């Protein structure tokens, strides 16, 4: 199992995701500096959370133009598994590997808290260890997590069952009140049409350690592991 975690200037969840990956995958991911021109052979590529380039200009936009990204786009198109979490999700939308964009939270402030998520698609390669409509608890920590796309794109995502997770309350109710940041249709994470790329705002790597309180992220990583094997 070969995993690459891409490190951009300003990434700050790179160590956290590496710890979670090591725990579940039992192998050390390679930390790949964004200026590399070539990517080591990878079964899984992870774009971690953080503030690449300080979120200056627009979240993820400068990272999307880092030297390593052309390799990553090629890999993504060829079916390599790619996960983008938080800032990683923003980068994936900036590269158009995933549709839509992430804009400023509805209430205009940073949100850091545990949130219930509904597993909307429990058949994907990233989520199949969860049961259908399972309600899980995963933290968010973002200022620009408000998922937006035009109606046609949203319809396409919904029709093709590409929504992985939605924000809800602990009873699974999905509505405006249980929407923390104003995302269209409470979308918290999506998958591309080929099914090999996922982006999500919540941080599953912050939910794989019982001592720190949450473990619902484990099934996410196990799903990916089993899909690759």
């Amino acid at each position, binding site marked *: 199992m070969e995993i690459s975690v891409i490190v951009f200037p300003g990434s700050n969840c790179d160590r*956290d995701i590496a710890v979670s990956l090591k725990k579940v995958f039992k192998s050390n991911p390679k930390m790949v500096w964004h200026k590399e021109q070539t990517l080591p052979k990878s079964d899984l590529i992870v774009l971690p959370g953080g503030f690449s380039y300080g979120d200056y200009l627009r979240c993820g936009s400068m990272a999307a133009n880092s030297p390593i990204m052309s390799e990553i786009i090629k890999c993504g198109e060829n079916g390599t598994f790619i996960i983008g979490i938080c800032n990683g999700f923003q980068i994936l939308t900036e590269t158009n590997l995933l549709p839509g964009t992430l804009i400023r939270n509805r209430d205009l402030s*940073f949100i*850091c808290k545990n949130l219930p998520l509904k597993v909307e698609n429990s058949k994907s390669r990233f989520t199949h260890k969860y049961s259908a409509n399972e309600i899980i608890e995963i933290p968010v920590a973002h200022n620009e997590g408000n998922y937006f796309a035009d109606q046609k794109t949203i319809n396409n995502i919904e029709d093709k069952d590409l929504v992985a997770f939605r924000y809800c309350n602990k009873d699974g109710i999905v509505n405006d009140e249980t929407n923390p940041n104003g995302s269209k249709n409470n979308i918290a994470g999506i998958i591309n049409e080929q099914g090999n790329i996922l982006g999500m705002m919540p941080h599953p790597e912050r939910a794989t350690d019982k001592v720190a309180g949450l473990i619902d992220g484990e099934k996410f990583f196990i799903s990916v592991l089993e899909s690759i094997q």
Partner: protein
Amino acid sequence: MIKITKELIDEHGINDKEYSFILESLGREPTITELGIFSAMWSEHCSYKSSKTWLKKLPTSNDKVIQGPGENAGVIDLGDGDAAVFKMESHNHPSYIEPYQGAATGVGGIMRDVFTMGARPVALLNSLRFGDINHSKTKHLLTGVVSGIGGYGNCMGVPTVGGEVEFNACYNDNILVNAMCVGIAKINKIFYSKASGIGNSVVYVGSKTGRDGIHGATMASAEFDDSSDEKRPTVQVGDPFAEKLLLEACLELMKEDIIIAIQDMGAAGLTSSAVEMASKGNVGIDLNLDKLPCREALMTAYEMMLSESQERMLMIIEPEKEKEAKSVFDKWGLDFATIGVLTDTNHIVIKHESEKKADIPLNILESGAPSYNRPYKIVTNPEVDQSYLLKSDKKIIDILKKLISSPNLCSRRWVWEQYDHMVMNDTILRPGGDSAIIRVHGTNKALAVCSDSTPRYCAADPTEGGKQAVAESWRNITSVGAKPIAITDCMNFGNPEKEEIMGQFAGVINGMVEACEILDYPVVSGNVSLYNETNGKGINPTPAIGGVGLLESLDHFSTPNFKRTNENIIILGDTKGHLCQSVFAYEIFGDSQGLPPKVDLILEKKTGDLVRNLVTKLKIDTVHDISDGGLLIALTEMSISGEIGFQLNIDKSNLNYSFLFGEDQGRYIISVEDKNLNDAIEYIKKSNISYLNIGKTNGKKIKIDRDNEIDIEELRDLYENWFKSYLKSN
């Protein structure tokens, strides 16, 4: 050549006596650059001229202290080769003028103090004080400061895990923003600021120098008046992205044996870092400002020396290692410039555009710095009989509802949910408890950290208030089952040239000295912020205490939330019912007369040691200290956070305001399962600590007696919603 006039000297905050000393020591008139250097180094902020004779009294060592005050931050031993590095610092004046940038750069500055010593920052805390909630600027300042703290810490990827927020009219025109950072380092990889090796290079790294923050240190040492808003250009602008790069670059370089000494450029920028590093090493330093990376054209030597541009460091390295060091900073896209050399002259010599702009013997800057024994008078409130505070026909439950939704007791969730408090994945106990718990990465041990102060007690009785601030910090660390080790302090006071203000400082220090000694809880770093006054009125004396403790194992620790129903609720410590200076007295009677509760430090220590034993040996996992608001507020917090109610079962004679809302010190609430009750009582009796079994956890209601009960949900709404509705109101 700029002529040095009387007016110019005054503008630099240098008095006649100080100026005569300069003339005498130099044997000539200073240049404008030199005048700027003297002004910055001798400002209250950098020289501690009013406070240093008092600060010397504080205990600064115990068997865990590796480095006490005098370095960029204090260092304590965590065992297994690990050390914690920490400090708290104020950024009050800049935050009042420009709340977002002022608070943000306060956070940035304190992080640099920690990582300059080779530690990776793992936790941020703060201590914030704003004016009256109805004051016209309070909302603007509150929202600006909170988003500034979040903006910087979140981007750095360092969790903000604790803090305090208080509102009081005395801070109307002079808010307090104190930021604390805790880092983890290996004991054998700690870096200090003492320069050494004549001929070694003086290297500048980080962001470029601009004109921001010029004379920040002098501003921080002057009282505010109505024209303070005009000082906005002296507030620095933060770039957390640059600091994140600087952090990673410094830590990467620190893995190698290259850096001889390093210090961040904080208050008074390049001046204080160059002077302090050379003075500590007893060497001279030559700087060539032509090499200084600048952001703006045509900067003068004066501006370069006094700029407080952020995200910059000064390092001493051997010339032959410059290339290797530079490659690390190149990778991270940061400036790296050799701007000088260490000499044997013991002078600081500054050249710019082939001209000598300054040449000052270092000994007159540092040891020649003024030190004052300012006159002081310790004033305490007259004692009053508190019986008038018992006369009210308000129902207990209505008072509880009012207190739990009052600005100073309600939930701070609105604040800390804007801070990433989980990044790094080692936050084991999040904000909202007595202390936060931060795991030492990759181990099963952890740090307990908290920040505390009770300024209204200090105003009423400085000495008791000083004791209480330290004792409360010690208690909060103890509440989670950790062993308190050491503190950092941020001393915020008014104008020390006034006898009573200097008396507040003296009294608080005296109280702290006593508490630090008896509790074995020394001060390892800190900061003094004086002249916190506006239009002649001083703030309440506010010694913010940042506490750090060690939890040997994460197998046993305690948290405030009730966890199981049908547990016995036990108060440890004496309840006498002291109401003067309580939140109850202020909120219900608008009263602030009389003396604060006394702290019995010997009993404090015994009670705390007992609590730690109960947590580690009897595995008691529910502990909360009793502080602001008294017993009933502490119990309500335990209920709301645990979603479990309680039924009090106390003697009728205790069903009164003083028992329920008194703020007697040195008390904890624990909750004990029936099967452990006998063992727990035995421990308590053996320690000779008074206790009272006051009822049981049970259901979803708080039941005090037949006339006073309420659903937890109703209280939770009151508790949680204050901030949001306050900010929505006009």
